């Protein structure tokens, strides 16, 4: 229950982390696939090292498919998927699953909604029965909607409003995007959480939850044939319907720096800098990840060495980028030390960025980044759970899980020139949004 206070620089992570680099030396995991008649795709990766199964269902619907007024609906809907269908009524899903040794969770991003089941292999058929019931026959109990509204509001308070990173990050996205639907928070604006209706929910279900919009990944102590047979029995009869309408809005090119400031009570300030970068399946994905590794990965990375170790102006510095269907953001975050103006961290970050633009990174740095990706790959696939998430993420964001196997080749192909080129192309002043949180404490003076 305790921890020390040294802050850990966030792992650069994400999709990139799921990829391995040295193709020849990396392990392969055989995946069996089947597409049901209704368009739902099933991927199975058998592994009997523990008597358990991880089952992930990815729906290609997230907050990017929402509209002003109902922001956060995808995530709220995700909650409702646990609140009762025809055979398994309100509360039954969790009770039955847990009584059979299983557990579940789900997550929503700007792009996808993902349902996760973890269970002993003995519960395999039951899980299919449960999943089919809620995909086909979800019910909308007005009382459940009201109580779940309170749950989501509490979640928003704890994960966004109660966290400086949450508050600042939300405003950063809202400022960096002015046209595209990535601009609002996944959890939704509080006033939207308070106002969405039963009709909104029903519409969302019809829009996003066609089997043809879903990909199921099953990893663990199963045989592909038994999974396919269960899928045919339980899922195939569910009719397909129209997929969500395409998101056609394209964010106009940013043509000048944007800045925003948040004043709130806080112990320490916070800094976030966002650059627009392409969507996940863009070829620059690999070079950008190598660049991020060199800048942010580990205590030997350039940014850590500069801001945390040498200048000692920050507690930590890191970067994030999510898996995305549309052009997204590369976000740099830094926690300035007490008494350090965020601008000082900002300046140091820009100087380091300038350095990668001006001259090539070293051979040693390039190799280090590739080694990191190889080790990170094994960290991702060493559990049945991590593997299910990885395979599904590749299938959904690259359009084919096989891309996992090309990644080795793609990372090996990244050159020092590529790293320099993507730094020059994407990390420019006109392409950035800078968000700063400044503590405003009673008695300590206000700005």
């Amino acid at each position, binding site marked *: 229950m*305790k921890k020390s206070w040294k802050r850990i620089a966030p792992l650069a992570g994400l999709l990139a982390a799921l990829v391995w680099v040295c193709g020849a030396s990396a392990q392969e995991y055989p995946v069996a696939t089947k597409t049901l008649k209704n368009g739902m795709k099933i991927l199975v990766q058998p592994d009997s090292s523990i008597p358990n199964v991880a089952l992930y269902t990815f729906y290609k619907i997230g907050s990017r498919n929402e509209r002003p007024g109902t922001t956060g609906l995808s995530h709220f809907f995700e909650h409702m998927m646990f609140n009762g269908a025809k055979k398994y009524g309100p509360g039954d899903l969790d009770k039955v699953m847990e009584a059979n040794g299983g557990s579940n969770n789900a997550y929503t991003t700007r792009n996808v909604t993902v349902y996760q089941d973890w269970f002993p292999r003995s519960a395999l058929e039951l899980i299919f029965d449960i999943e089919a019931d809620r995909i086909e026959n979800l019910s909308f109990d007005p009382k459940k909607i009201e109580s779940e509204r309170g749950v989501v509001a509490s979640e928003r308070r704890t994960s966004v409003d109660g966290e400086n990173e949450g508050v600042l990050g939300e405003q950063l996205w809202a400022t960096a995007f002015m046209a595209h639907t990535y601009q609002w928070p996944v959890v939704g604006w509080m006033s939207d959480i308070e106002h969405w209706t039963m009709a909104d929910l029903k519409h969302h279900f019809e829009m996003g939850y066609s089997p043809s919009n879903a990909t199921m990944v099953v990893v663990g102590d199963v045989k592909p044939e038994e999974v396919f047979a269960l899928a045919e029995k339980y899922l195939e009869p569910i009719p397909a319907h129209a997929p969500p309408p395409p998101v056609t809005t394209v964010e106009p090119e940013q043509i000048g720096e944007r800045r925003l400031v948040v004043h709130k009570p806080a112990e320490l300030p916070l800094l976030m800098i966002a650059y627009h970068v392409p969507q996940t399946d863009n070829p620059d994905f690999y070079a950008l990840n190598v660049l991020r590794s060199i800048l942010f990965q580990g205590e030997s990375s350039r940014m850590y060495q500069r801001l945390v170790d040498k200048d000692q102006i920050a507690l930590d510095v890191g970067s994030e980028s999510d898996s995305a269907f549309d052009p997204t953001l590369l976000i740099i975050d830094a926690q300035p030390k007490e008494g350090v103006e965020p601008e000082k961290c900002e300046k140091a970050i820009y100087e380091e960025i300038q350095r990668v633009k001006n001259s090539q990174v070293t051979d040693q740095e390039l190799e280090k980044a590739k*080694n990191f990706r190889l080790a990170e790959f094994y960290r991702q696939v060493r559990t*049945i759970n991590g593997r299910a998430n990885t395979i599904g993420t590749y299938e959904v964001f690259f359009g084919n899980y096989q891309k996992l196997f090309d990644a080795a080749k793609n990372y090996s192909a990244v050159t020092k020139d590529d790293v320099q080129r993507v730094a020059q192309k994407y990390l420019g002043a006109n392409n950035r949004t800078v968000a700063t949180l400044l503590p405003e404490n009673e008695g300590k003076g206000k700005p």
Partner: protein
Amino acid sequence: MRDSLEVLKHGVNQIPHPAKDVDREMRSGQAGIRDENRFALMLGVALLLGVALMSGGVAQAQGVKLPPHEKVVLPNGLTVLLLEKHSVPMVNVSGIVKAGAVVDPAGMEGLASTTAGLLRKGTKTRTAQQFSEEIDFIGGNFGADAGSDYTSFGAEFLSKDTAKGLDLVADAVMHPTFSQGEVDKLLAQSVDGVKAAKDSARDVIFEYYEGYLYDGKGYGRPTGGDESSLKKVQRAAIVKFYEMYYTPGNTILAIAGDFKTEEMKKKIEEVFGGWTGKAAPAVKMEALGSRKGKRLLLVDKGDATQTYFAVGNVGISVMDPDRTAVQVVNTVFGSRFTSMLNEALRVESGLTYGASSFFSPEKEPGPFAMFSFTRNETTEKAIDLMLEVLKKLHTEGVSAEELASAKSYMKGQFPPSIETSGQLAGVIARFEFYGQTDDEVNEREKRIDAVTPEIAKLMIAKHFPLDDLTFVLVGKAAEIGPVVKKYAEKQDAKEIAAPGFWEGRK
């Protein structure tokens, strides 16, 4: 530490931080398996492996066993545990130095933790930067930190880099130099780290809870130190701490992963055989029994829109004979999604994103707590409800059906907690430290099955106190102060920005 934008079904996800998808919203936050050193709070499965081990089980007997492993004691006294696992080409090292934060001198909390943090910050042959460069270059990692009972260090690398990886671990553990520059740097970061943590109520509520519960003694002292105590930590004390406790006879080294045991033994002897040191003094700690009466600490966070609250008492120790039965009951009561607490506070009333309870056993009795959070206006309603659920546990007990479900859940959820080399190395190291045997895993299902409704009833009476309760709340005192007066006659208050957590009555 920046998982801020996740949105889940419930608080703690089982994803071992894989794709750290930014802006992910989850249904809940059930803590499955996380890095050992992480703070897994939310739904209070906080105990991680500890709990899982004691509590887990199988629907139909899953029959999981701990893989075979070997123990060797080197002539210099170092205990080495080796477990082969070839599923991925990686090696994990999990070490324990048998002295943790409980031996920090009074007023110098954070000494053990700072000593651990400095291991990689410069050795006789490597600067901090060189160490980082070398471990990063092989895609590996190394970390060390102190808990209450012991200090742990760990590393992970690809098996092709075993020689380099072991060399780095040995160098950090055997030859740290604690240069003044690095000492100053780390201490300054740690002080700011405390302040940054205080910006998030959920990151610090258990520091206050444990501080108040143990009145600033024993497990009530902050393992990472606080703003005042860290300023008293000096290089000389660090060196003394290191020399006294970091000795081969006082250390357990568990290695699991892709290697051949006989070859690894030789390598370990080569690398660690030359380590010397005097016998370390035995760690003594005065154990605190459960607290009598009702007491309440209100930590004022002026901008809070939600109140975070923990309610409980001193719980059980790692070797408590009741441990399995307590975990079975706690599964029903507060450590899964359909637990009594989560059903009442979240599912049925929508008052919160999550409510849970946990036991955090240590060598001596560790804390027991019920935990949740709710908006300022519903603070009273939520705490009242929590206490009602506790009362219901006593009056109605646990039904046969609930008991069967909990057993099945514990068994079914257990295998993924001993799936990886890193998890296994951690498990065998802790078993060695606490004097547990493999039966903790191998006999687990049997022990779970042995818990009857009668035993459950006894556990409730004995380990889930109804009248002797310690309350700790972090929230906006101006709004919630008046309504929480009713919970305890003895009331204390503190500003969150004031240095420290709860140091106890002087």
